[in-house]
């Protein structure tokens, strides 16, 4: 890892000022992606701004019909939170499937979303649950937030503070895990909301997380795995690599979507 200057931010305003001041800075949340990336010299920021000592960024609470999770909440906290398990059990289950126990003790929801890895789990939950990402500047709906591979709508000096998830009627996440990396080869998050059905897919898209309107329309008519029988998605525009071809991933999307609907009940 190349050396850098380390800054420990004590508040969000200070962290924002630092982002404005240093041209080549990176925020450090859980560090479970950033630090390995820096070791591989795929990233070599001149300045690291550590968010871990900022108070009040990891709360988890139910506010009316929304589950609000602080950006620095660790995956282990989300997975074991009685509030999350009661309000959106599928989200707690998803957090429990990330990495391994030690990684879950460090990794954060905000870090995962800001990184927008095309194989990460949380982007599927945000898009599938119609979450709103709250930042130091504004509120961004999930449909507008994820912009492509490792790309988001975040401005260079903007920091995620929390994520707000409307509590759905039903939701489930099904993940076909890469056994080595523990990332999703494909993951499908299905949600039944009062006004709509959402099907969000991670791991498969050549430009990151996406929704499947054809599946959503079929499920809106009748929320049952049977509604998806015979429906497929084209392999065009999907990712293919040594772990699985685009055709294989397209097949998995259908299988996992049906399983998720069955699981959501």
């Amino acid at each position: 890892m190349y050396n850098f200057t380390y800054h420990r931010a004590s508040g969000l305003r200070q962290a924002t000022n630092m982002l404005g001041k240093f041209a080549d800075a990176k925020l450090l949340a859980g560090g479970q992606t950033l630090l390995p990336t820096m070791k591989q010299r795929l990233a070599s920021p001149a300045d690291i701004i550590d968010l871990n000592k900022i108070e009040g960024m990891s709360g988890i609470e139910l506010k009316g019909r929304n589950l609000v999770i602080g950006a620095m909440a660790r995956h282990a906290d989300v997975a074991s939170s009685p509030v999350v398990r009661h309000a959106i059990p599928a989200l707690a289950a998803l957090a429990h499937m990330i990495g391994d126990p030690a990684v879950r003790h460090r990794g954060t929801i905000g870090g995962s979303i800001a990184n927008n890895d095309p194989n990460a789990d949380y982007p599927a939950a945000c898009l599938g649950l119609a979450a709103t990402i709250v930042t130091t500047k504004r509120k961004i709906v999930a449909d507008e937030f994820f912009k492509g591979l490792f790309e988001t709508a975040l401005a260079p000096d903007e920091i995620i503070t929390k994520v707000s998830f409307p509590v759905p009627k039903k939701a489930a996440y099904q993940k076909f895990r890469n056994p080595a990396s523990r990332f999703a080869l494909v993951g499908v998050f299905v949600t039944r909301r009062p006004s709509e059905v959402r099907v969000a897919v991670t791991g498969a898209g050549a430009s990151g997380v996406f929704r499947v309107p054809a599946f959503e329309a079929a499920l809106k008519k009748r929320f049952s795995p049977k509604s998806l029988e015979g429906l497929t998605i084209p392999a065009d525009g999907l990712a293919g690599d040594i772990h699985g071809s685009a055709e294989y991933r397209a097949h998995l999307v259908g299988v996992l979507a049906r399983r998720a609907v069955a699981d959501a009940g």
Partner: protein
Amino acid sequence: MPAVSLTVNGKAVKATVEPRTLLVQLLREQLRLTGTHVGCDTSQCGCCVVHVDGKAIKSCTMLALQAEGAEVLTIEGLATADKLHPMQEAFRENHGLQCGFCTPGMIMTAVDMVHRLGHELDERTIREELEGNICRCTGYHNIVKSIAAGAKAMSGAPPHQAAE
């Protein structure tokens, strides 16, 4: 170089480190606590697992400076003067190791597992919880046995006897 103050195995420690120094490097190279190992250095293998503020983490994937003010527990901090920790004893009794390289991480993960999930751990739970710890010798069978026995022993119950 920046300074960091933390508690390691109950003792207050001060050190100056480069910003890029990893927690595991501080432990091994400066504090000479070489029980914590570096296997893969890519947060896969779990040989470097230590507890920070009571939670198991991979010390190859945390900066030393991030441990400012933290309580760190390493494998060296488990045993008392002449008595092994019940989990260490269980690994010895159940032959939970061969070469021993992964063992410190396995034991730190196992103790964390007991803290979170209690003293009655079934095989499936243990195997699932071990997904971040890789052993290339044992095939895990005796590690799983060791952890189940160690978990019980940590509650003060009579220790599980090895099969042979």
